[in-house]
């Protein structure tokens, strides 16, 4: 098996690991993937994937307004807000 590209996965997942952590995770992930590779021993051709245990259909409801938006309430726990907007570092110079 090719070595797992931890740096690539970290970029996708927006995580930063230092060198020691990267080495540790490299080893752990290699063992985890080797463990899950046991799955390949079972022939699953023609088996429909099961995404949800009850396979329920999404229900419909009357198209009525049931919730009110309370920005002040939900923004009271935000790290930084101004005039009802969430503040982040400048994106466009």
């Amino acid at each position, binding site marked *: 098996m090719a070595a797992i590209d931890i740096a690539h996965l970290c970029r996708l997942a927006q*995580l930063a690991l230092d060198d020691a952590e990267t080495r540790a995770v490299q080893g752990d992930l290699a063992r985890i993937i080797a463990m899950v590779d046991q799955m390949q021993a079972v022939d699953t051709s023609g088996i429909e994937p099961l995404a949800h245990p009850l396979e329920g259909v999404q229900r419909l409801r009357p198209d009525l307004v049931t919730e009110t938006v309370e920005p002040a309430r939900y923004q009271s726990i935000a790290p930084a807000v101004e005039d009802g907007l969430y503040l982040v570092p400048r994106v466009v110079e």
Partner: protein
Amino acid sequence: MSTPEPTAFTPLAALARGLRERRWSSRELTRHFLDRIARHDGALRSFITVTEERALAQADAADRRLAAGAATPLTGIPIAHKDLFCTDGVLTTCGSRMLANFTAPYDATVVARLDAAGAVTLGKTNMDEFAMGSSNENSWFGPVGNPWDPTRVPGGSSGGSAAAVAAGLAPVATGTDTGGSIRQPAAFCGLAGIKPTYGRVSRYGMVAFASSLDQAGVFGHDVADLAAMLAFMCGHDPLDSTSSDVPDPWLMQAADTPPAAPARAPVIGLPREYFSGLGTGADALDAARRVLEAAGCRFRDISLPHSPMAIPAYYIIAGAEASTNLSRYDGVRFGHRCENPQNLEDLYRRSRTEGFGMEVKRRILTGTYALSVGYFDAYYVKAQQLRRLIQNDFLAAFADVDLILTPTAPGVAFPRGDLADDPIAMYQQDIFTVPASLAGLPAMSLPCGFHAGLPLGLQLIGPHFGERALLETGALFQRDTDWHRRHPEGFPA
């Protein structure tokens, strides 16, 4: 003349009777458990937040409701919530630094329904970060001790709820179970713990880990206590589109009429895959089988041939769903934000890196790998195909048997630190609980003996929406055994 005092291990029905007959007030009962938390929890760390003022206010409201004759069987009963149920105005941390500053702006449906019934919330219990773990060692707020031996783990991820109930710091507590997070800690702490059918209880306001697996449930000593709590927790919720609209009239009245032994003793399957090579606990399970046999249950050997694939399939599916669910933690709208972000990328990356612990990062990366280009079919789709084969095994078995009996965990509670450096060995803790999770089946752990002074659990698995059969058979087992009446010595009633 003295009033008889409630003990820390009095069943809910007796606590409720005492409230109705004015032998104690909800305030006295609440004070009793708050005092026990103050006295004992320093050593256990089972609570992250104790909501003393709020609890006493709820208790006073419950006392008024009792006086007005408008009480439910839970009115005035103190309970605890795992710290991943959102509680309006109360810290909801999910055991993570990421949410260490998160005061929930609304109630989870489970919390709202138990509040409406009049239950009193003592506080929020410790847990593995984002419910990822089997030992409660992955909490930002520190590890939880097992009341039977505080140098050992209580199991996870709902280890705080399990330890709190086992030590008599709360009569019952909620938990959640994605791959065994109620059943394994119940077994390790000598408690009854039930994970209902997927969809039986609303997930609204539960911090999500793996959405196709997560399900809320309960810890208690008696099966009747589990049923009383579920009676109020269960039922369709328009706020959770995956919550089931199959009503269960029996379960909904189970707080008023506790489960009794079933009218017809069930036929119980013993899956050979779960028993081959079982060392610790084999004798206790054999004794449990004989107890049930003496009460009229019949046993049949069955096979669930795809069981060995459950752990690999689970760690792909749960990792994939977790990596998706946890992408919402970006330091923008709530939760941890890093200091002085240089740009948006830096804000995301450092907030997440600082906010998540190592096990959460491992699972996010595993899930990211399984979902990445070139690996999606080989891992994610493959795991979902195996999930169907595992579910088919159970459906075939339930054509012949009413319930399935297995061990809950491969051993007893292990010493803290023993598996901390070996994620694969830690994942094997879930080997007997994960299959029912993948299939969405209800399952319950009950105390069934001891090994070297530590509790052992048996697991009963039922067909979809078969909570009644589980709880009634559990009532039968507890009628004829007293394992659930044993309590750890360090926490006298």
